[in-house]
């Protein structure tokens, strides 16, 4: 506490719980494109990242996430399009003047410097601080990431998790209004990754900077973000809150990438009030709400429903507003707290989670009824031709 008392007024403001209102910068990407030779890495990307938000770029490897981050950082110049921070174009601002903090995928800690010197580096480059002020700021930053007493060590003497924290401390020490992170937890084991996810989220709440976080792990994106930006093949395919991209994916790719999705092929037969009547492979007509893209009668669609929204029963009777269909059990896997059941609707599998009590008596080859609330399902455009979801 004496540490905090010694530092300047704005240091004191920082340690209080509410972040400063101007703590984050708004980042706008307009028609941004970048190619490497014949490879298009970022293709006409439009995105507004609100000030102070935690935004995740989520997509499979090679979808253009790192390139987008490098464009924001200024390591790469876009072939076309603009980047603006708080409405001001940054095309002519070199990376070292953009006032950004960055955590690299491999951490990129300076191997010839101690932990202290690594963390002090941005302060030495950006701010002219007296020795005591510098020491205090480095100490604060290391405390923020939960790392103390290791100042004299070299990066190679640290564990992966500790290196990750040092990289965070270095990125945060000069209080940048924008923090870029490229798969910062990719190299860590699952337990540590989950713990650090919580800690990073907590740091974001405390300092209020804009965080742009790159990952290919959908759980990470869903648990941490205010806004998820799903990328595929150099383009943005969907932007939305974690719930909206999870519950209302715009296409089969997003549906599948964000977690196990059931996609039942069907044909739109009618277009009644707020719902489509869709005939699925076993001949049954089911009701699917009309949201998102519209489908003309006769068009092929994929009916999307999450495994956890599907219920299973041995008998016909199912009450409430549900759609039901008959199915044959193909596989039952014990997962601990629940069973993973795969049931066939015609030739198409439907995966669902059955709690232990519900799973009693479910046998492979047995006939069951599946049911789900229609509002949880979506009709997605079926991929045309040979393009697979």
């Amino acid at each position, binding site marked *: 506490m004496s540490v905090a008392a010694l530092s300047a007024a704005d240091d004191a403001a920082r340690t209080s719980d509410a972040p400063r209102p101007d703590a984050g910068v708004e980042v706008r990407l307009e028609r941004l494109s970048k190619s490497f030779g014949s490879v298009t890495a970022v293709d006409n990307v439009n995105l507004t990242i609100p000030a102070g938000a935690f935004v995740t770029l989520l997509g499979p490897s090679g979808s253009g996430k790192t390139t987008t981050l490098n464009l924001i*950082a200024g*390591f790469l110049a876009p072939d076309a399009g603009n980047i603006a921070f708080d409405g001001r174009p940054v095309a002519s601002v070199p*990376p*070292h003047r*953009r006032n950004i*903090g*960055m955590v*690299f995928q*491999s951490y990129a800690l*300076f191997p010839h410097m101690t932990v202290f010197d690594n963390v002090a580096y941005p302060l030495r480059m950006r701010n002219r601080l007296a020795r005591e002020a510098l020491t205090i700021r480095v100490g604060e930053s290391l405390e923020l990431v939960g790392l103390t007493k290791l100042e004299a060590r070299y990066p190679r003497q640290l564990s992966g998790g500790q290196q990750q924290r040092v990289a965070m401390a270095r990125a945060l020490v000069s209080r940048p209004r924008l923090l870029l992170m490229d798969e910062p937890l990719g190299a860590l084991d699952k337990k540590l990754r989950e713990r650090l996810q919580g800690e990073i989220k907590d740091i974001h709440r405390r300092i209020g900077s804009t965080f742009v976080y790159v990952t290919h792990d959908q759980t990470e994106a869903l648990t941490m973000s205010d806004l998820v930006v799903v990328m595929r093949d150099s383009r943005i395919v969907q932007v939305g809150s974690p719930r909206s991209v999870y519950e209302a994916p715009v296409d089969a790719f997003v549906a599948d990438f964000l977690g196990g999705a059931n996609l039942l092929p069907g044909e739109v037969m009618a277009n009644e009030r707020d719902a489509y009547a869709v005939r699925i492979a076993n001949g049954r007509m089911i009701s699917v709400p009309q949201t998102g893209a519209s489908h003309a009668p006769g068009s092929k669609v994929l009916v999307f429903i999450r495994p956890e929204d599907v219920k299973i029963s041995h008998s016909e009777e199912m009450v409430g507003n549900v759609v039901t269909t008959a199915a044959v059990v193909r596989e039952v896997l014990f997962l601990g707290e629940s069973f993973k059941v795969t049931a066939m609707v015609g030739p198409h599998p439907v995966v669902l989670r059955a709690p232990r009590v519900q799973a009693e008596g479910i046998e492979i080859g047995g006939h069951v009824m599946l049911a789900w609330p229609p509002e949880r399902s979506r009709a997605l455009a079926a991929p045309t031709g040979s393009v697979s979801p």
Partner: protein
Amino acid sequence: MTVSTLPAYPARSARLKRISAEYPHALGLLLLAPMLSWIAVFFIFPTAWMIWQSFSERGLQPYATILTSAIYLKVLLTTLKICVITTVGCLILGYPVAYVLTTARPSTRAVLLILVVLPYWLDFIVRSYSWMILLGRHGLINQLVTGLGISSTSLPLLYNLFSVSIGMIQILLPLTILTLFSTMVRIDRRLVDAATIHGASPWRAFRTVFLPLSLPGVYAACLLLFVSALGFYVTPALLGGPEQTMISQTIMVIASDLLDWPLASAAGVLLLVVTTSLLVLYSRFFRLDRMLGGMAR
């Protein structure tokens, strides 16, 4: 064939196992044997013979002659001076080239590397003679200088320290560049990015991150250059004047003109001692094993 060798295999492998258990270094020694015998016959034996010869006839007297004679000491000093100039010159010229090589795109890099290595395949003597054509009294440069009226008399460019240094630098430059390059390519470029994004201008990022990380390569190059320069013979003989006589030339003169083999051997032994002590000192200070094996990381 197959039928007869198959049953034998387990037995043979068991025997091999037993042998390798009893003599854990046997296989390594076996593989090293050709090289070790080569070194023994063509290096260790002649060296030992040279050392023996330097003492056998007149005891320590040849050493006393060298260490007390002003001429030999001057040659030794000249040699050291030329080696230092060559080493420093190579580093100053080679560092930027190696740096550019690491930043170049792979296709450009390949072309540049070939250009760097190309002179290495040209004969020493050819390269030294080409300098004579350039720098001579009636050489290209002097013709240009007098022709353009910059100077009325031709400039003394040849047979001096300048021409020897330039000739030796040219010969050792590919080695310099390759040594520096091999260290520099292993530096993670993301480290420079990390410096830049955290506020360092390109120059400061270079000075605080790239340069310190490239120093092991610089130290390795220093040693390699200095030791290589110590043994130069042809270049100073062709491009230097009497003032630039180096130790190898002197040894040659003692051996083939004065026919004083003990004296020549003693001079050789002294050169060997200087070189070896340099290596030992250097590896103490700069951890040679790490330098040549890359950064420990």
